[in-house]
């Protein structure tokens, strides 16, 4: 049986950072990022309002990504909250060397990894919590897929969440994960291939 989960497609959510919609590629981004940089600088200097603004502006996109990464809403919320706390503690270390969005992605990924280290995902125990997914079956299935990808090794789950989940290009994901673009491509290929290999050996219901 072939399963097609064609969902009502929500409009693709904006990537981090979302504020100020921008169509003009470079010019406006420049303006936007200077404004953003200003807020970051103020927050780094200890401006509480600027920090609050920063969190408010980026919460939604962090949360969305965390959901894709964790494969469930509850964990997504936990990770995002933890990432926000982490943001407070480590914002000082942001040196404007990379895009703030890349840095945030890394922050969320690192947070999620740390949390997963201390808490083994107990897939079966959390069925009840998955309230928001369209159906419990889909949710369980999704968690299985993500767990499967997670087992492929370090960095695979991240690629899944960034490229498939967030729709980033391989190059963008590579910058965030600090690997080569080709590594991202390869991991993605592996994910496809191994998931499909999994399919072959499985029993077709």
């Amino acid at each position, binding site marked *: 049986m072939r399963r097609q989960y064609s969902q009502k497609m929500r409009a693709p959510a904006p990537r981090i950072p979302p504020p100020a919609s921008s169509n003009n590629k470079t010019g406006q981004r420049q303006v936007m990022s200077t404004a953003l940089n200003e807020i970051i600088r103020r927050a780094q200097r200890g401006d509480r309002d600027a920090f609050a603004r920063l969190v408010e502006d980026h919460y939604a996109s962090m949360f969305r990504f965390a959901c894709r990464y964790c494969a469930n809403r509850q964990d997504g919320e936990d990770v995002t909250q933890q990432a926000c*706390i*982490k943001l407070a*503690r480590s914002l000082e270390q942001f040196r404007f060397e990379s895009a703030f969005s890349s840095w945030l992605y890394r922050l969320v990924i690192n947070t999620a990894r740390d949390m997963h280290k201390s808490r083994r995902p107990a897939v079966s125990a959390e069925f009840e919590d998955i309230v928001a997914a369209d159906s419990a079956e889909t949710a369980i299935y999704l968690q299985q897929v993500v767990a499967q990808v997670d087992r492929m090794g370090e960095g695979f789950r991240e690629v899944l969440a960034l490229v498939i989940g967030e729709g980033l290009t391989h190059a963008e994901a590579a910058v965030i994960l600090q690997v080569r673009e*080709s590594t991202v491509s390869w991991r993605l290929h592996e994910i496809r291939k191994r998931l*499909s290999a*999994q399919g072959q050996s499985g*029993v077709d219901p």
Partner: protein
Amino acid sequence: MNDDKQLENLLRTIDDRPGEDARERALTAALRAFDEVQLEKKSGAASQGSAAPGRPTPEPHSFGRTIMQMLTANTTTQRWLYSGMASAAVLVLGVFIALQLPQNGTRLTPSEPLAEHYDPAAGAGALPAGGRDNVAALRPAPSPLPTAVEMDSALSHDGAAAEKLADSAVLSGLASHAVSGIDPLPRVQQEGRDRFDATVANPVKRVSAEPVSTFSIDVDTASYSFVRRQLNSGVLPQKAAVRLEEMVNYFPYDYPLPTDRSQPFSTHVTVLDSPWKAGNKLVHIGIQGYDVQGAQPRSNLVFLLDVSGSMNSPDKLPLVKQSMALLLERLRPDDSVAIVVYAGAAGTVLEPTPVKDRQKILSALERLQAGGSTAGAAGIQLAYRLAESSFIEEGVNRIILATDGDFNVGIDNPEELTGFVERKRDSGVFLSVLGFGQGNYHDSLMQALAQNGNGVAAYIDTFGEAQKVLVEEATSALFPIATDVKIQVEFNPATVSEYRLLGYETRMLAEEDFNNDAVDAGDIGAGHSVTAIYEITPVGSDSGVYSDSRYQESAGTSGGGDEYGYLKLRYKLPGEDSSRLISQPIGTDVTTTALLLREARFATAVAGFAQLLTGGKYLVDWDYRDALELASANRGDDRFGYRAEFIQLVRRAEVADAM
């Protein structure tokens, strides 16, 4: 890509619109943390000597955290930001050199099934196929070469089939997996060689549960070069780039040469106390191949050089040229060399030319310039055609590919490429790869090529390394003296309770494959030495990691109380089909020479260092200082200065680690 779409849709099934409550909670928690940080900053500035204020560390009593725990009950311990987040530990994985001597004769008869050459560990399919997406667009119009057309169409056919399969199988298969709830074993382990990240260190094993350990030797050295490169630039290498056995085997060891030519190599077993865990012992197995003197076979080489724009950096094309010039030095006047380049277009720069026309070859090399995009071209087919045109029976026929990893040489699917190279191997032409430049993920592909070609893998980062690989070790890289060398150790449960093999994670073999001559393994070149180290816990020592088993019989009754185990080696002479066996007991009370002890200790220092770089799970308190001490004390003659360099690296790592 349809399956991508399905995955994407699947990921989108989670409602990811932020909940207001959660958002508020997060904001509150974040602001509290923020206030705390500000407070710390102030007090940190006031009271000097307080723990580095700027550095985020776990704070068991932090208020923000308490709040947070109250709010989200299942959020447990947190570790704050990796400092590593800031340090851009760029993945450096290189390309390998896979030098391969023809094993003329029966071994290469085309009738022999391909599968038999295929190491299941590597062959299980999952070759890296990175860059395929990107490369596909660059694939040129059908090449004028018939072979190329064939390859291309075969490729796209396979590709399409694979897509279809994936399309239909991914979801249904996984769904059924979800339903059945059976957790398949992670495939990572079985496919060790097809990936470079997250190799798990060999675990400690109970002798009572698994007394036999089997692996293939590995004479690659590439890992050490990556690690050196990283450390020299002040960064700790990525853990995945560290392969213990390749670091240990980078160094030449002064093991006594075999006295008797009937065996191509001698084996030396040394048992010493474990420096990092009192009570444990290290069993050190050193294998030394004999060195060929005099006549070397004639060579027919085709250099296949990547001259794309990305090669335009001092450590790439110029180094390639220098390396090739070095290699020329090692060739005989009647050997033949040809040069093929690929970039915007593939072309023959130099038709097969005898080495005695040195100047002609050198000036052809000199004229090469990097530029243009790496268009997938018929480079590799062209190179094979040239090699076949000047084929030397009973000689070395080899293509030497030098690249920075943009490996799109006409066949852009790694599996296809490996298959192609393998088929060509049967015709007697071999492919060797020299990796240049930084940040090369094709590690895995090169490993696969090297393994399928029984080759040596190396990575050229400096002129010194080119010198080492192409001049000092040319004979060992070029002329194997034993192929498919496997090691099997059976431990004696009466004397050993636990053991652990250091390194060789990607070279593990199934116990039954030891006696199966169809299973491929590593080769030993002329003059090569190979080292393997086991850490064992003798019976009665409390230094093991397992607690005593209540129901297991405590000691074997098979006797042999004066042996830790029994070492067996299988190998084939080049060109032979059936393997030979060498075996010897590992005594508990082996007498050894001061020389062997020194070499074993140096190898131990390197092995310990490699473990430190990967986390040092088994090292207790042993650290860089201990590695430094052990290495310095056992430097020996160190003719080429490799060990001195190692000691410098340990210092660098210590500094980098402290940062």
